[in-house]
């Protein structure tokens, strides 16, 4: 089978900084894949290698089976990238920018698709406005549109919702989900983990240029099956429970981290034994964000 993205043992060093230290990763066609990690983890470097903007020191990267170096034309035809930086060409209107971008990909008359993209990204009333005059959110939409002009089977979005308002974020995700349903492979980097949790079928977590976790979102949530218990007590916390404390707030609220649900019973028993009254209690499921923090701490 041909992978949508196939990265084998890619390394990249900038001076003394090892940006990527041997990353291997495969994404299947039609996946919605999340690339997560703190700033400086190497996400953007990895994407830039896929896009041909950065050349790896060693290792190979393929898009739909095409090597990004040797067979760069086919690889770039198959890839649409929404860059992280809010870049634009101040000489052109939205429609001109999209028509020019189509031309770079060898498409002479692409009006019907450009109109559809403009419509779907709510850019219709700005289509003839100069790029310079657009707000940040609008510029972001144009960047997405530019990445889609050639209908690439693989679409990579590098933090597309950074600094974007709620309305656009929702419109953007509706559109990207639709593209994914239509068969496009989506790779997403984001710092909003609830976004990744809601959208991505699989995620890779990067730290200091290495993949520390690679699994389905479902598995990650299931394997980290512990829970949190938030308590407000009428007395002091029994000493036996001290090791479980994850957080203590100034207002007296305590958060305990339990390795699994069965432990709730033990907590209750310890409280009963010590005769401490429970004023408030809340049991919380960990979300992807908690799991991310745990994994990053351990890695």
């Amino acid at each position, binding site marked *: 089978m041909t992978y949508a993205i196939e990265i084998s043992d890619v390394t990249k060093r*900038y001076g003394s900084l090892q940006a990527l230290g041997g990353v291997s990763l495969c994404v299947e066609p039609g996946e919605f894949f999340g690339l997560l990690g703190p700033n400086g983890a190497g996400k953007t470097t990895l994407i*830039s290698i896929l*896009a*041909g*903007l*950065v*050349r790896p020191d060693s290792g190979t990267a393929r898009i739909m089976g095409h090597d990004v170096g040797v067979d*760069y*034309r*086919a*690889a*770039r*035809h198959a*890839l649409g*990238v929404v*860059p992280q*930086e809010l*870049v*634009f*060409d*101040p*000489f*052109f209107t939205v429609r*001109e*920018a999209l028509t*020019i*971008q*189509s*031309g*770079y*990909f*060898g*498409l*002479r008359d692409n009006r019907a698709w450009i109109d559809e993209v403009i419509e779907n990204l709510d850019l219709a009333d700005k289509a003839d406005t100069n790029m310079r005059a657009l707000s940040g959110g609008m510029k972001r939409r144009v960047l997405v549109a*530019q990445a889609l002009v*050639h209908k690439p089977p693989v679409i990579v979005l590098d933090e597309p919702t950074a600094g974007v308002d709620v309305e656009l974020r929702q419109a953007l995700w509706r559109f990207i989900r639709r593209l994914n349903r239509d068969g496009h492979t989506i790779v997403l980097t984001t710092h909003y983990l609830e976004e990744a949790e809601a959208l991505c079928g699989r995620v890779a977590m990067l730290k200091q240029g290495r993949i520390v976790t690679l699994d389905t979102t479902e598995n990650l949530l299931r394997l980290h099956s512990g829970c949190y218990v938030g308590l407000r007590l009428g007395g002091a916390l029994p000493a036996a429970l001290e090791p479980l404390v994850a957080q203590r707030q100034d207002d007296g609220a305590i958060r305990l981290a339990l390795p699994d649900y069965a432990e709730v019973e033990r907590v209750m028993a310890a409280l009963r034994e010590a005769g401490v009254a429970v004023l408030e209690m809340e049991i919380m499921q960990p979300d992807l964000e908690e799991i991310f923090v745990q994994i990053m701490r351990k890695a």
Partner: protein
Amino acid sequence: MTGFYTLFYKEWLRFWKVSVQTVLAPVLTALLYLLVFGHALRGRVEVFPGVDYIAFLAPGLAMMSVLQNSFANASSSLMQSKMTGNIVFVLLPPLSHREFFLAYLLAAMARGVVVGAGVLLATLWFTEVSVVHPWWVLLFGVCGSAVMGALGIVAGIHSDKIDQLAAFTNFIILPLTFLSGVFYSIQSLPAFWQAASHLNPVFYMIDGFRYGFFGASDTSPWLSLAIVGGSFIALSWLTLGLLKSGYKLRQ
């Protein structure tokens, strides 16, 4: 082909949309030179027998404008794209390094030739311009703009900051074009500076271009053509090599 043509068209639009700045302004500058130097030196300098100084000056100024503007177009376009980051729009698509080179080069040549033609047209108000060998004029106009366009691409790719590009322009391009015999015939210079002028490739561009107008020149137009053509081949080879290696564009 569509990719290359689009990039060329985009580069054409980029200067054409701001043609007051990119075409009209350099034409005006050349006219100011013509007025000031023409007034100051008219009747005092006769370079070619029977040729009025303003008539002598006009083709040189036109060629100087061709060269400076070809360089400026390629270098400033690439520089600005790199600074603002929108260079990614041309790096992400499947354009080859040859397409990239040709598109930027032809757009640079187009601006140079448009400005040069503008200068010549404007000088018709002040003096009669006769053309003895129009094909030589065209040939040197095209070759000269190609050399400077290629040099502009190299400078634009190499420079990381505006002041680096400004240094390139002010310390290399301006002296080379000013000391190339635009305002004088190098025959009037002391022997040492005559010899030095022969080391300046821009001298051959101006001299060959001027030969097309007057049928007279300091050096044989064939030698000039060989040197200008050789410079272009060497520079193209260098530029294509840089682009292929991804120098400063693809890390």
